[in-house]
């Protein structure tokens, strides 16, 4: 708001004062929201680090058992067991609300399966296949968990960022500009008052003469 566009009137001043009050209140609330979100984020962060760590472990284990399965059964055996059509892990995306941020809640059908429910026959395979399948089922569970939590983090971060941007805008742009305008009007009004007074005095002096 360029200063020259401002009409230095009393009503404008009242308007500005109201705007400043509003902005300051908004600023406080947004700051609280930002702090709240960051607090919420910290909670999720610890959890996210844990699930990431867990995910890395599970992946390492899955890769290792796969190497073992390849060693024992050969890629041929593993591939033919993996061709099996089995029950597909189904996931359901629901949502929940953290301080106005919609985050996903992922529900999944059971990933772990018993020997009977796996797609391969027990009699034609060996234990390493069981171990590999179990390792990957656990990995998939960890992935589902990570997906939920990492999306939550992304959403929270988005919200934190936009809140922060708004807080900063209020703090460093909107409020200072409004205050500046207010000061300008005040100054102009004072000046006008002084001019008026001076003029009155002049008139009075002339009429007295």
């Amino acid at each position: 708001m360029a200063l020259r566009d401002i009409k230095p009137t009393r009503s404008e001043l009242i308007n500005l004062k109201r705007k400043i009050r509003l902005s300051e209140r908004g600023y406080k609330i947004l700051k609280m929201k930002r702090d709240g979100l960051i607090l919420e984020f910290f909670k999720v962060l610890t959890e996210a680090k844990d699930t990431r760590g867990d995910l890395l472990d599970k992946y390492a284990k899955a890769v290792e058992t796969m190497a073992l399965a390849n060693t024992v059964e050969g890629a041929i055996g593993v591939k033919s067991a993996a061709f099996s059509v089995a029950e597909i892990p189904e996931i359901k995306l629901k949502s929940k609300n953290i301080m106005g941020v919609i985050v996903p809640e992922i529900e999944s059908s059971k990933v772990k399966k018993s020997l009977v429910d796996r797609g391969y026959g027990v009699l034609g395979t060996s234990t390493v296949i069981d171990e590999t399948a179990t390792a990957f089922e656990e990995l998939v569970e960890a992935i589902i968990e990570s997906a939920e939590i990492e999306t939550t983090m992304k959403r929270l971060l988005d919200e934190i960022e936009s809140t922060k941007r708004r807080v900063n805008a209020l703090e460093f742009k909107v409020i200072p500009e409004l205050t500046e305008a207010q000061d300008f009007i005040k100054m102009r009004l004072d000046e006008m008052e002084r001019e008026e007074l001076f003029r009155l005095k002049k008139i009075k002096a002339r009429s007295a003469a």
Partner: protein
Amino acid sequence: MPAITGGPGPYIYVCTRMRVRKAKLIQKDEYQRMLNMSLPEITRIIGETAYKQEIDELATSFKGIDLIEVALSWNLAKEYQKILEITPGTLKQFTRSYLRRWDIQNVLTILRGKTQGIKHGKIKEILIPAGSLGRAMLDKLIAEDSVDRIIEALRGERMYPVLAAKIGEAKEIGSFSKMENELYRQFYADVIAEAKSGIKGGELYLSFIRLDIDVMNIKTLFRLRADTFEEDPHEMFIAGGVLTVNDFVRLNVIKDHGEFIDALRMKVKQKTLVSFLDELKEKKKVHDIEMSLTRVQLDQMERMSKLHPFSVHPILVYLEKKKYEVFNLRALARGKESKLASERISEHLVM
């Protein structure tokens, strides 16, 4: 090539050939040496020995570790077919029925590959035509465009009745696993019926198969124990061994390890298996148990074949040993590729 007649002559001939072939298999100390080699060195050794021809033939279509694996499988299939050719009379019949196990694996791979939309070439790569269904027949099956057509094309084969009876259920539950188990059960039932049909030498064939069934059932019991779910083990039980289906189910519900071993020990009469179980008082990992059971089984088979040097035993022992040679070489190559430690690989070798 000997005429297909009975009589001791051809038996002695073929069993001697088996002994010669068996002697040519890679020995324990060679495996030990190979464990300390790098993958290229192992590849070179495989390419220079019995597997040279396959490596050369396949080198244009495959590379690296896949080349080794496919070459090993093809060699195994070829070797089995050769054994069938030189085996006379009833021994041939037994050998052929024994090798039908590979048909199950191949047909299921095709069915699964097809239902998952895997490319023909990819399916073909992982077949091991070591059974009665030859390469041409398997190619024909791969070319069929539906599961039903594949099964129809198998009409007249041993596996057909089970396939036809079970395919409906398999489609409904979306898994071939029950069908696969059933095929193996039927395979053993067929083999037993054949061994018992009064053909000369059937008794010895039967004893060999029974050992196999016992080992399979014990392995399955250990696998079921490792699994955290409670499940109905009926479909995984193979009849014809020392365990009855009731024994099997009862053993499966025993929670305590020691109790389970004791109960199993009471049922198993075979001496080597008993002493094997005695060593299992302490808990071990399932695949260690599985590997040692395989070793026990092979040792026992070897012993049986020495007792009956002119029977089906030496042939079957050779088939098994050859199979494990292929498995071992594959394990060495795959293990080295995945950078597993030598000790780790050696745990999975059958020597």
